[in-house]
């Protein structure tokens, strides 16, 4: 069912382009875009761009997500950690991460590291906040059950805090995938020699509008696949959640 509405939109777009209702120099017909995509898929450059972007996204993602997970859990479990970190996170989180991109480029240079870092920073805060919320929202009764049985600290962390926080952690993963992609593309616009973001920017500078659209399509597809991947992980690891189907 989910395929129906995007398909309808594409058909409408195609019709408008062919009938001359929209300016094809700015809005090329989907058929033109897919033909171009097909052509580019056969080139090595396309795969280098996609591979580079994916690698940057995943390395940056893990660099941010793992520390975020640890800090979020620690904030949820230990009051001193919470009291130290909460004001910092509250102050830094709302800062748009794109705003500090120039600073990141200045510190880490124009190379790969700056791409990892900008993605990692965005992911870190989201992961911290969602993991913390995940722990904080566990009903106290579950901790009471474990404490009443004189469960050890480690047992309480492993059998109550961690599983109880998993729904929050997965919410974090889901939003982080989108943010990672967004920050990566922005970073590739300004300081990169390859990658999907770089390719879009380059297509703009030489006015190859169709190639720009190919870039959009690839990003949309990556966004869709990563969301799907998180859903798949969630179904696998949280079989206990009631879900509406």
């Amino acid at each position, binding site marked *: 069912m989910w395929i129906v509405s995007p398909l309808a939109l594409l058909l409408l777009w195609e019709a408008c382009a062919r009938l001359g209702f929209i300016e094809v120099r700015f809005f090329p017909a989907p058929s033109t875009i897919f033909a171009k995509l097909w052509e580019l898929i056969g080139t090595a450059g396309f795969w280098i761009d996609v591979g580079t972007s994916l690698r940057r996204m995943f390395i940056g993602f893990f660099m941010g997500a793992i520390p975020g997970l640890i800090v979020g859990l620690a904030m949820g479990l230990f009051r001193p950690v919470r009291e130290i970190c909460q004001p910092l996170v509250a102050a830094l989180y709302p800062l748009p991460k794109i705003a500090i991109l120039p600073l990141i480029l200045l510190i880490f240079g124009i190379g790969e590291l700056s791409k990892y870092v900008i993605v990692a920073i965005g992911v870190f805060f989201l992961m911290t906040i969602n993991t913390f919320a995940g722990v904080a929202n566990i009903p106290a009764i579950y901790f009471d059950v474990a404490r009443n049985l004189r469960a050890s600290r480690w047992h309480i962390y492993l*059998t109550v805090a961690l599983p109880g926080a998993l729904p929050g952690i997965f919410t974090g993963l889901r939003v982080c995938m989108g943010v990672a992609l967004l920050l990566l593309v922005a970073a590739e616009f300004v300081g990169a020699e390859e990658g999907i973001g770089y390719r879009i920017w380059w297509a703009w500078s030489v006015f190859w509008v169709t190639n720009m659209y190919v870039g959009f399509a690839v990003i949309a597809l990556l966004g869709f696949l990563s969301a799907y991947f998180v859903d798949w992980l969630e179904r696998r690891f949280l079989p206990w959640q009631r879900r509406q189907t």
Partner: protein
Amino acid sequence: MPDKIVIREVGRTFDVKGGVFAALDRVSLDVQDKEFLCIVGPSGCGKSTLLRMLGGLEHPTSGILTIHHGEADRPLTAMIFQEESVFPWLTVEKNAAYGLKVTGTWRGPESVERVDYFLEKTGLARFRTFYPYQLSGGMKQRLSVARAFVTNPEILLMDEPFAALDEQNKLLLQQELGKLWEENRGTVVFITHSLDEAVLLGDRVLVMSSAPGRIKQSIPIPFERPRTLMSLRRTPEFNRITQELWDLLRDEVERARAEESGRVAATATVTINAESAG
């Protein structure tokens, strides 16, 4: 019989906005080994607070509370809560086994058998691989009963375990709990607001007074076991005891109500003052 629990002059206060609130005041009581003690009292009189102290979840602010720990290889207490407390992330089977796992008393096949036995007894054996979201409210409460019994605690603590259930489920569960206890006798402290339930299950019923909670009276329940509510209800003795309990309780409930509205009125005054000051 020896005393399992000795409570002397126990008090508990909570810091609240604008002072301290006394939830329990100089409570003294003894619970014998293998006694089934029921406690009734108006809501807010500190029953849960008292039970949570016995379960190691709260501390008294005054007085002494002693529990005689007999055997090292059994957990001291296992609590059954009024609210849903089964872990949503564990299957029925794993929920039932939870206590053995975290108390380090898991003994392989012997424990598997024990889990099976109580799942069978609580009618959950067919649902062993289900997750709690797939169970009804009554089944979840039966599961928390099973989880507590599986650990074979020295003392079972139950805080209005059936209060949230519908009447039919409640009747069945009371009956099943009575049977389970007769087969596996241990010390039980059982809080309820149902007088029928208290008389059906208890060897003795304590009536508590309204806040700050105190022990008002202790009534022994003389009926032979096994008991069923239907047969008890036909005896004049049952009616006499429930009537007596209700007479004791009614004054307290009325007083608790008056105090509650007093507390609300007091808060309202504070708010008005604060507003006029600001």
